[in-house]
């Protein structure tokens, strides 16, 4: 399978690997996927008082496409408002990384991960 240069770059030099304190009020954590399916993504956003995502971190168990998809979205959400981040679509991720058809689910998972992180953040601030 031939992967795009962008995908390989994100896999080999993943951005924003790491973790924030889950208990921190400014942090939203999304954990999606399942070990039995071969993909688990944990994506965290750190939101400033102005509602803008200041920072993001991820950890992913999965194939190269899953790792690249999650790395990419940590870059994309930074500097966006929570509302803006919620509009990121899996199709944009798949297009940017030129994911092969069998790997589209990786981009779906990355979209789910952002949504889950935002939901977690919103719950804390409800």
């Amino acid at each position, binding site marked *: 399978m031939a*992967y795009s240069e962008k995908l390989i770059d994100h*896999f080999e030099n*993943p951005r924003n*690997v790491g*973790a924030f304190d889950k208990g921190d009020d400014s942090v939203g954590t999304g*954990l*999606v*996927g*399942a*070990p*039995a*399916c*071969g*993909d*688990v*993504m*944990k994506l965290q956003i750190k939101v400033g008082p102005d509602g803008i995502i200041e920072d993001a971190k*991820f*950890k*992913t*168990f*999965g*194939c*190269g496409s*899953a*790792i690249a998809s999650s790395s990419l979205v940590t870059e994309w959400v930074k500097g966006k408002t929570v509302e803006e981040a919620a509009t990121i679509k899996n199709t944009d991720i798949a297009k940017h990384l030129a994911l092969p058809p*069998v790997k589209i*689910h990786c981009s*779906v*998972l990355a979209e789910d991960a952002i949504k889950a992180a935002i939901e977690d953040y919103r719950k804390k601030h409800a």
Partner: protein
Amino acid sequence: MNTAVKTAPTSDRPNAPRRPVYLDYQATTPMDPRVLEAMMPYFTEKFGNPHSRNHEYGWEAEEGVEKARQQIADLIGGDEREIVFTSGATESNNLAIGGVARFYKDQRDHIVTLVTEHKCVLDTCRHLEQEGFKVTYLPVQQNGLVDLAALEAAITERTAIVSVMAANNEIGVIQPLAEIGALCRKKGAFFHTDCAQAFGKIPLDVEAMKIDLMSISGHKIYGPKGIGALFVRRRPRVRLQAMIHGGGQERGMRSGTLPTPLCVGLGKAAELAKNEMAAEATRMKALRDRFMAAINAKLPEVFLNGDLENRLPSNLNLSFAYVEGEGLMMGIKDLSVSSGSACTSASLEPSYVLRALGVEEELAHTSLRIGFGRFTTEAEVDYAAERIVQAVSKLRAMSPLWEMAQDGIDIKSIQWAAH
């Protein structure tokens, strides 16, 4: 992690382009140059049709084919008249199981096999089920070996053929062939064994093991691709219905002009294996142990799938917990390994062989098959171990499952949403 990566050791050709280290010898092997040398004349000057009885061109081709037949028979303690050339082990397995089942179907319409067999055995059995045959797919034990008591119980007076592979293509475990052969003989069922991985690697004896049919592959033993053989016992005689009809070559069991150079290549590869098998097995075991020691010294939570003792010395199948196999393979691009069998590497499902051992799905997703072979060097093994340690460490550092495990969270306690 930006640790300096040593370049992969290459061959003795200093200007050769750098290529990945090949550690997938269970998928296929390069041809031994001695095999190629033996084959060459049969492409050009000795090009005759081995079935031509009227002239020298035919005779010299026939001589090459018959010598090869003898070389193959010699490696398994059989008679050269019991060797049928085929296009490979897939065809041999199809011919053995389908051919015997269809020939004897009026008296016996039952087949016994294992769930861990190669797809070409399982798929053949599925097709026979559609024709009305009954098939028992026996589970294996946690170490990958058949439970002999369960096998004995499964064989009935309606069982035509029992098909159990000698060495598994994914996990390398070696089944107790002699015991299985004795059981089959006692019950009057034919014993077929798929020896694609075992032929030329471990001692095989069709008499001592009471093997009635044996599938053989050329390209797994440093011979050419596109050639295989089926051993078909003459005493007591095994009969089978041909799949390929035509000029009646190969005693009517497999029509078609024999590919002389390929037959000669398979024969030569068998001869080399016979002479070198013992020394090679010792060397493979040393390489394997060296590799395992290097991995175990640096990485915790690496699990071997399948029995260690009853195993091809050249095969390892390892689960690197918390690191997904496909991602891992992408992280070790300069090593050519496999995450299962080459036949199924396009699918995203975890290996059915590992699942049959009771390996949990999440662990099955983390496995690599590493196969050493005739041209593997110690330097390559050391390099491979180092690269795998690096890649696994890097990927574990970015694995949420590894993080949870370090924090003492039981991954099974989490409600995962399957997708």
